[in-house]
């Protein structure tokens, strides 16, 4: 186990470094004079050069990279060119939307996927099981933003039950904030749920076909007991892995959903800042997201170690 942990940690660090270089190159490679964009169309050339100098954008790339990384390591995410706000503050203010959105979307997705996937795995011969499988196929084919548009057309425009978009701050109007998250979360959860259903289904199918489940049944467990006591515990491992991997996709989904519902979340912030070439904001924020995803995957891996004695006890 210590070796396992050490390997995973080492890989995590390596991965973060690799990702940071990739992100830096990608974003710095982006066309556009940062300072010019930041200053807007009426800016004078002198002002632009001054700004570039002020933020050290005229230094060599390598220097800029290490400067950025060095500050990042000290917890300094940098500052916005336009507002001089600290990126950390920006991110934190956005997280109050993105995290609830992501987490509830994921939870909803799992709440849908685990029962639905399990049911359709066990009863693929029954009409309902086949229906669930079909629905999950259809759900996978539905673009998350289209689901969002349709939901907002139905519940927002036609029925007028829920806001079609926009955001009220938590402290301004708690229930208002909750209401503005309902449709986004449902869209995200439904679509995520559809694809997770497939994974759960195949994981459960896989596990329930294992010899040890047959053994459990042969020693007197009912189908349901075998599922709950043996099947799910074992299926949890592959499902956890998939969920870890899906986090990256979930974040992709939130970019779109935040746009559909005009939620000022983290992803939207990135979108806006990419357009504005706020390189520091984009770099640091994207990096944070990547670290977050990698951290989740690290946790899943370590969890795997805890859940699976084959890994845990391998010294």
């Amino acid at each position: 186990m210590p070796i396992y942990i050490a390997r995973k940690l080492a890989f995590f660090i390596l991965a973060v470094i690799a990702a940071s270089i990739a992100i830096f190159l990608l974003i710095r490679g982006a066309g556009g004079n940062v300072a010019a964009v930041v200053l807007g169309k009426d800016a004078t050339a002198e002002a632009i050069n001054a700004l570039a100098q002020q933020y050290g954008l005229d230094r060599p790339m390598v220097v800029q990279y290490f400067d950025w990384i060095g500050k990042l390591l000290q917890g300094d995410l940098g500052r916005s060119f336009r507002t001089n706000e600290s990126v950390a503050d920006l991110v934190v203010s956005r997280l109050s939307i993105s995290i609830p959105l992501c987490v509830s979307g994921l939870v909803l997705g799992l709440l849908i996927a685990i029962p639905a996937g399990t049911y359709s795995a066990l009863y693929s011969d029954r009409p309902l099981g086949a229906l669930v499988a079909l629905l999950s196929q259809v759900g996978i084919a539905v673009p998350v933003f289209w689901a969002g548009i349709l939901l907002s057309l139905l519940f927002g425009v036609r029925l007028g039950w829920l806001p079609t978009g926009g955001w009220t701050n938590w402290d301004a109007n708690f229930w208002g904030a909750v209401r503005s998250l309902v449709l986004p979360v449902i869209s995200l959860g439904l679509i995520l749920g559809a694809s997770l259903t497939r994974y759960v289904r195949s994981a459960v199918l896989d596990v329930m076909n294992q010899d040890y489940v047959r053994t459990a049944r042969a020693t007197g467990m009912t189908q349901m007991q075998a599922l709950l006591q043996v099947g799910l515990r074992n299926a949890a491992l592959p499902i956890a892995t998939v969920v870890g991997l899906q986090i990256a996709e979930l974040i992709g989904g939130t970019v779109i959903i935040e746009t559909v519902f005009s939620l000022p979340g983290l992803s939207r912030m990135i979108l806006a800042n990419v357009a504005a070439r706020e390189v520091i904001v984009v770099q640091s924020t994207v990096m944070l997201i990547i670290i977050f995803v990698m951290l989740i995957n690290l946790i899943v891996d370590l969890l795997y170690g805890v859940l699976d004695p084959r890994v845990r006890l391998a010294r």
Partner: protein
Amino acid sequence: MTIERRPLLALRDVTQSYQLPRTSLFGPRSSFTVLDGIDFDVCAGEAVGLVGESGAGKTTLTRILTGMERPQRGQVEFDGQDLWAAGAAERTRFRRSVQMVLQNPRSSLDPRMRIGTALLEPLRSLRIEGNHTRRIHEVLDQVGLDRSALGRFPHEFSGGQLQRIAIARALMPNPRVLVADEPVSALDVSIQAQVLNLLKDLVQDLQLGLVFIAHDLSVVAYTTSRVSVIAAGRIVEVGRPVELFTRPAAPATRNLVDAVLTVESGLAGTAL
């Protein structure tokens, strides 16, 4: 009978070990000796058996025997020449002369390759000239297969037939030694006999050297005239099958002999 033995293929004091995965964060990686000072040989027209428990090192030994792995210590000698010291021409001759039959007949043949093509593969690979069609027909006759097999795919055959095809493929380059690693353990009882008989015939008819591996002593004993018992990477006993059965010396041999169940002993109530 003890004329001068001139082994065709021989291992001399062969040792092989593998590195084990790390067990502690720091400290050296330990290694694991799979084969330890092995001496082993086979002559033309002779069937030699190798038995041993699972993990004893049988498959590793075949890999060294066929030149797929280079031993850490010791020599592999073919026709009296050290394989790993020999030149390219010698190596090519070795490749043609030592062929192998593997355990699982179904996975021994590429499912997407017609039998005819599969049989030609060794000839092409080893750049053997000559009338290939005639050679194929010859070999098919030797293993008792119909020519109609050539156009078909592996999934159209039964396990026993596939093992024959695998044997046929091994025979294509006209080898002098055939190494068979558990060639019958995946086969049904009624089929197993067909393959064992075939191998025996080939040794006789073609003066092949056969290295036959199994963990079932009775099967090995039936097929071969000399058996080596391997345990934990060492050859612990060599002898004629009958002698091993009746007077096993090494504990490992005794275990294997003990393990043999026969219908007769079962009926007699002495089996367990």
